[in-house]
């Protein structure tokens, strides 16, 4: 499984990913036609600004376990089994806002979909493009290597994945002696072991 890896230190704040994301999720798929669609396609990647005015690309980490999925009342948020991506089914969503509460990364928004329904809205790792053998639109458009598409195993303990699990699982620092987990790696190992044992 491949995931989008964010390298915030390389981001130049050009906002191309935001634009490409909107276009990729529009009905027409064309940069010229998308701004003319009845319901504008909103971006699913967000460029935050640090207090030092550095750009910080922020998008769904497709956490495992995913806090948003656990908080979602009607199970509109689910993990797509083949790709492992955390997806939102806007038809099921009741717009309760629980997912924004649960997500440690602040990547969930609420927007009108082309079906005219307002529902939770976030990165789907361009699952439609991936099925066509293409990389996610944000990765394709990023010219500075701030967004990469890489093998999950290779990035398992890379920065972003670490941050996600660290925050959600409550590990304060990798070296911390006390607390529930020795380290993220230990936790991940435990799950791996469990999977192997039961298989």
């Amino acid at each position, binding site marked *: 499984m491949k995931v989008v890896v964010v390298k915030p230190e390389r981001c130049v704040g050009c*906002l191309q990913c*935001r*634009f490409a994301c*909107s276009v990729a999720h529009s009905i027409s798929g064309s940069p010229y036609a*998308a*701004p003319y669609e009845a319901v504008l*396609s909103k971006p699913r990647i967000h460029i935050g600004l640090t207090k030092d005015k550095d750009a910080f690309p922020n998008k769904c980490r497709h956490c495992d376990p995913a806090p948003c999925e656990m908080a979602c009342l009607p199970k509109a948020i689910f993990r797509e089994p083949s790709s492992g991506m955390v997806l939102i089914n806007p038809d099921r969503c009741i717009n309760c806002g629980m997912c924004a509460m649960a997500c440690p990364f602040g990547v969930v928004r609420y927007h009108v979909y082309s079906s005219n329904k307002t529902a939770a809205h976030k990165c789907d790792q361009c699952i439609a493009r991936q099925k066509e053998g293409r990389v996610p639109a944000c990765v394709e458009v990023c010219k500075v290597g701030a967004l990469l598409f890489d093998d999950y195993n290779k990035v398992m303990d890379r920065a972003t994945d670490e941050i996600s699990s660290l925050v959600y699982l409550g590990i304060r620092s990798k070296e911390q002696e006390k607390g529930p987990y020795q380290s993220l790696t230990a936790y991940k190992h435990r799950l791996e072991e469990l999977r192997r044992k039961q298989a």
Partner: protein
Amino acid sequence: MSEYEKLSICKDAQLTLRKAREDGVETVWDRFKKQEPQCGYCELGVSCRICVMGPCRIDPFGEGPQYGVCGADADIIVARNLARMIAAGAASHSDHGRDLVEVLHKIGEGAAPGYTIRDADKLKRVAAEYGIDTAGLGNEGIAKLLAEAMMEDYGMKKEQITLINRAPKQRIELWKKLKVIPRGIDRETSETMHRTHMGVDNEYVSILLHAVRNSLSDGYGGSMIGTELSDIIFGTPKPGFSEVNLGVLKEDYVNILVHGHSPVVSEMIGVAVDDKEMIELSKSRGAKGINLAGLCCTGNEIMMRKKIPMAGNHLMTELTMVTGVVESMIVDYQCIMPSLGQVAQCYHTKMYTTSDKAKFPFMEHVEFTPVNAREQAFRIVKESVENFSRRNKDKVYVPTAPVRNMTGFSVEAIVGALGGSLTPLIDAIKAGKIKGAVGVVGCNNPKIKQDSGHVELIKRLIANDILVLTTGCVNVAAGKAGLQVPEAKEMAGPGLKEVCGLLNIPPSLHLGSCVDNSRIIVIACALANAIGVDIDKLPLAGAAPEWYSEKAATIAFYAMASGIFTVLGVMPPIMGSKKVAELATSGLNDVFGACFAVEPDPVKAAQLITNHIMEKRKGLGLDV
């Protein structure tokens, strides 16, 4: 379909592209691929870097900012950017025209050895338009006065530029009403830059109206002067045959290429390569002689007048060197890819720049002035000949045989072919033998399979009995496809075929370089005047299927402002403003009687144009 067949319809391009890959040469297509996907904000025209409170972008999807730091919305930003594009295009043509005014002036002063007046009749005709009393004056005397009068067109001494008077009365009245009559060629460009500075003009319609004025200062100013003076100094083109495609390069000759836009340098190179001594020198180096060929609009200029063959258009320029037989390439300015010097490094080709306005990496600068041009031309040709011995035999590859191409259709030549007046053409249009005429102009753009837009469109138009007038890169495309020889009449509809057969001309006529779009304007004006209607009533249209440059945007604007419906094959960066886009694609119709359409598919574009021409015929009460 091979990888290369997706990039170009031209056999010579496909074959040399493969060799370029083998030789490790990076081409415009490779670079385009690396740039893709391109910046969406810029594609829509909603990015602004006019001031350093910015750069700013408007989010077309409504989530992000809707205003630049200064408060400009998408409409203002798009309009400002477009106006600046048009200013750049107008500046390019007009500065090119200025160089010819300078040469003319120097001729008048007797200070331009090697340059003379080749068309004295035209000199007098144009001088008369400028109200110059030529009685008792020699060519030099008239040249000096005309050059000075034209200099005033560039400045701010006049209320309106002189050649605007070529337009039909009704058009001039309309322009006056809209306050878009250009006052000075440089002035309008300067004013565009002023208006689009932060905090000046912030009403998109007002900005765009001025952009129209700026474009007219090119079409009826800089470009028109460029064409007329080139004719006066180098001769008004007459029909004749030449050749196109990479096959015009000859393996056993010294091959010299001229590239750019101005005939001032290339004409002189032309003199030098014909020089006996130079030819002898080449023979002493083992070559059979010296072969001069053109690229882009410099190529068009010398093809029109001297029937010098053309090796290719915009996207072919890098590939010419991949043949391994080019001893030197001499460039002046405009549309010269900065990569050329780099490509030359892979071969033995010597690269020369000639204008102090246009210098490039990996090229040697040999500055040309009206005074030293002859001398410099001989120097370069001599060095090129000497370079023949450095040619690497293993790298030689001329992929195809050249194709015949008919050229030289200046307005005067067309009128001449018609027997002295436009009446036979008008009669043919009235009789429905020719349904109308379309200027197919513009460049190449790697966003469109090379030449596919041009060729397909022309084929469809002539099949519908629509006469095609080509300039710029379209000439090479049409020529390579065999559309510009009298035999091509077989591809035309019955009416057009009959007319072409009678006059022994192709259904697609080569009118010259991109400044020579002014020739199309002159014909349009003359037709309108002869019939007694405004241009927008005529069955005419323009098309730029593969345009890439700011100059093309300016041309499109002055064509539209003249009343000519224009179809673009590449989307201009305006879609970020719904209002500007609406204005361009329909609103302008109510103002100028013409607007734009964007249609990358040449089949659909041909349909659009044909429908338009039929509408206009109906308007004139003609059969469709």
